[in-house]
């Protein structure tokens, strides 16, 4: 353990250098070119560590990177990450990578470029120190922030071949490991009203903007903290001109649920509320659905968490399981019964916000935890 820790300390500057390179590439979910460049950098690093690497090419969206390396034992490990960020094109120019004291700033520095850099350096440390590793599959999806629509079949294929999975999302406090995440739904409401000039007495019109306002409030009213349901309308557009009754409006609805068992009832209530018109004459249509089931702890996860806790104890890290409202690709792996530990990445503040930043001093202990878990899996039967 101490040798790995020393290795990582010696390479912290290299980690930050790689992180700077990655952060300074605009790789928002719609910046295909930047995602592909980030993917190529990861592919080169993995190849140098003896992985067989394959780039899965996408047409419009970012490519994915898949890598595979045999190892000791039967407990194949899946390392899950993503290459895209939530930041639109141009964010890097506005706020490029910056390290200042113990903080490193920049778009995606925590979600999740810091996490994939940690994954690479955990593998690198074990490789360079000649430590044993289990069979490993790596999959870095190019569209996680869009719900992993394209990446999901690959993620699930990797999960089915694996016994356990580590997800490189950012952490929020020292020692935390994510064992529970909420499921995510993405629903899209279209409101068709009737256009009319505000003054045309023959055509009263039906204001889609007005219906939209009622819908925003009614939908958000479905949130139920006790049952673990959060509904929020996070994107709206409506109307064409101030003096014309809006003939169309759209709302993108974000839904989070804590437990898989509540998903059908939540979706039914959502449909009932979304599709009941308030303003006479409007028509409503709802598309979308749950894109990620909740990540719920299963018996395999409990055992995997004990293993990680042991590793943490040895490394002087007090491991603490946590729950997060944000979905991740771990939702897919856990739903397939694979032991999944998430939020293995660096300690991050204001994730996806304007001041997203990580604590540099968290890089070594978080990476050490990953490396320790990987090494321990190789020794298991």
């Amino acid at each position, binding site marked *: 353990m101490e040798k790995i820790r020393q290795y990582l300390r010696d390479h912290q500057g290299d980690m930050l250098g790689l992180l700077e390179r990655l952060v300074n590439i605009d790789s928002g979910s719609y910046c295909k070119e930047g995602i592909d460049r980030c993917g190529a950098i990861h592919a080169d690093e993995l190849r140098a560590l003896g992985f067989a690497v394959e780039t899965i090419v996408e047409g419009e969206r970012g490519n994915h990177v898949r890598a595979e390396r045999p190892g000791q034992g039967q407990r194949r490990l899946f390392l899950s990450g993503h290459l895209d960020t*939530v930041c*639109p094109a141009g964010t890097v120019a506005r706020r490029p990578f910056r390290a200042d004291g113990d903080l490193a700033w920049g778009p995606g520095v925590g*979600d999740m470029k810091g996490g994939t850099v940690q994954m690479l350096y955990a593998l690198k440390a074990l490789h360079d120190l000649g430590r044993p590793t289990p069979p490993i599959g790596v999959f870095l999806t190019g569209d996680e*922030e869009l719900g992993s629509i394209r990446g999901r079949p690959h993620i699930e294929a990797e999960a089915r071949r694996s016994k356990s999975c580590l997800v490189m999302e*950012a952490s*929020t406090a020292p020692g935390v490991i994510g064992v529970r*995440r*909420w499921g*995510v739904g*993405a629903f899209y409401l279209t409101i068709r009203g009737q256009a009319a*000039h*505000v*003054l045309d007495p023959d055509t009263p019109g039906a*204001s889609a*903007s*007005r219906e*939209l*306002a*009622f819908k*925003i*409030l009614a939908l*958000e009213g479905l949130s139920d903290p006790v049952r673990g349901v*959060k509904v*929020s*309308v*996070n*994107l*709206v*557009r*409506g*109307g*064409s*001109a*101030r*003096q*014309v*009754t*809006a003939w169309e*409006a759209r709302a*993108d*609805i*974000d839904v*989070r649920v804590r437990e898989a068992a509540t998903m059908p009832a939540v979706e039914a209530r959502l449909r009932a509320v979304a599709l009941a018109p308030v303003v006479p004459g409007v028509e409503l249509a709802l598309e979308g659905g749950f894109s990620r089931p909740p990540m719920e702890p299963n018996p395999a996860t409990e055992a995997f968490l004990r293993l990680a806790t042991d590793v943490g104890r040895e490394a002087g890290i007090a491991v603490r399981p946590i729950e*997060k*409202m*944000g*979905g991740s690709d771990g939702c897919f792996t856990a739903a397939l019964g694979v032991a999944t530990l998430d939020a293995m990445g660096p300690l991050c503040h*204001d*994730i*996806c*916000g*304007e001041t997203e930043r990580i604590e540099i001093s968290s890089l070594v202990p978080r990476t050490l935890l990953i490396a320790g878990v990987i090494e321990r899996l190789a020794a298991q039967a």
Partner: protein
Amino acid sequence: MSAASTIRKYLDSQAPAMLALVEELVRIDSYAAVRDGVDAVGNVLCRELEAAGYTTERARGRRLPPEQRWLEEFMLPGLDFERLADHRVARKRGSGRGRALILGDMDTAFLPGGPQRFPFRVEGARAYGPGIADMKGGLTVGVWALRALAATGVEAPGETVCVFSADEQAGSLSARHVIEPAARQADWAFCLECARDGGNLMGSRAQIGVARLDVEGREAHAGSAYAKGVNAIEAIARKITAIHALTDPAREIFLNVGTVSGGWRRSVVPGHASITIDIRTSGPDTWAEVEAALRRIAARDDVPGSKPSLLIATHRPGVPWTKHTDRLIAIAREAGGELGFDFGVARSPAAGSSAFVGPLDVPCLDGMGPTGGGLMTDEEHVVIPTLTERAALLATILHKLATGAWQ
């Protein structure tokens, strides 16, 4: 023969020429942002009026002061106000009493390409085309009313001034600076918007304004950091329902939240939301009341941590219905009676160039144009026989005013 009969007879004989002028104007693409098109309409109008002895000139408005520039972008997004066509002013002295102001607009609401997509056509008693009712039919009525006075030699007011605006569809922000000085010199004003249902004139116009309400919240990832976010869309939804509730048709208060936007992706708590609001009130008192209510709604703390900002301005003060309006209506009815037709007079909540003469206390009648319908759609039309009727009505009213009907 009475002056009314003389005027009517002359105009009946010119009906084909009037329809030809309507067609010529409708075939010109004159969306406010199409400078050459609006300019071409101005050239045609000046040509027609110069033939009746009018002198014509070009006029420029002024930019708004910097603190009100947001209105320019609001009215016609992307339009460079420096590139607007000139407004046109035509004037002629006459031998009778008083000074009359005629107001018309050269721009239409149809986006560039309107005349190609929706070409001029005649079907039965109706003529169709982009801007034919709003207000190329009205321009034709105005021009031919003045030509009729000149051609028949009946007595006309001491001075008749026409102001043709280049930016009425864009809020008249520039034309206002030409209309107001002309109105200060006038005893009566007439505006050439098309007549409403059944040939109604308009005796008043609402006060009109716009507002833009923005709410700043705080962005945060909807999953990982939900509690740190401040949802600007939720805040603005609460404000939208409150704003719509201010509408009170009985008191002629109309508010419309036309556009709504907020957020930028489903998975991020929105840090910004914005709406645009159209506001119409019966006059300054109700305007003040609505503005105060909007400011209250804007400032309300709907979602803790959200910060609202409200821009509000009235750009058309409107025309109140006064006792002078009643007098002018009586004279118009007398003229109509002599010509053999009657009409109602309505209160209008719509926008128009006449909206600037109200605060100057100039008696005003609007809706002097032909009967029209289907405004701003591909059914926009005028009723052809009303072109001559309305031209005769306006000419007869001007003649009556010139010969002492107001005294």
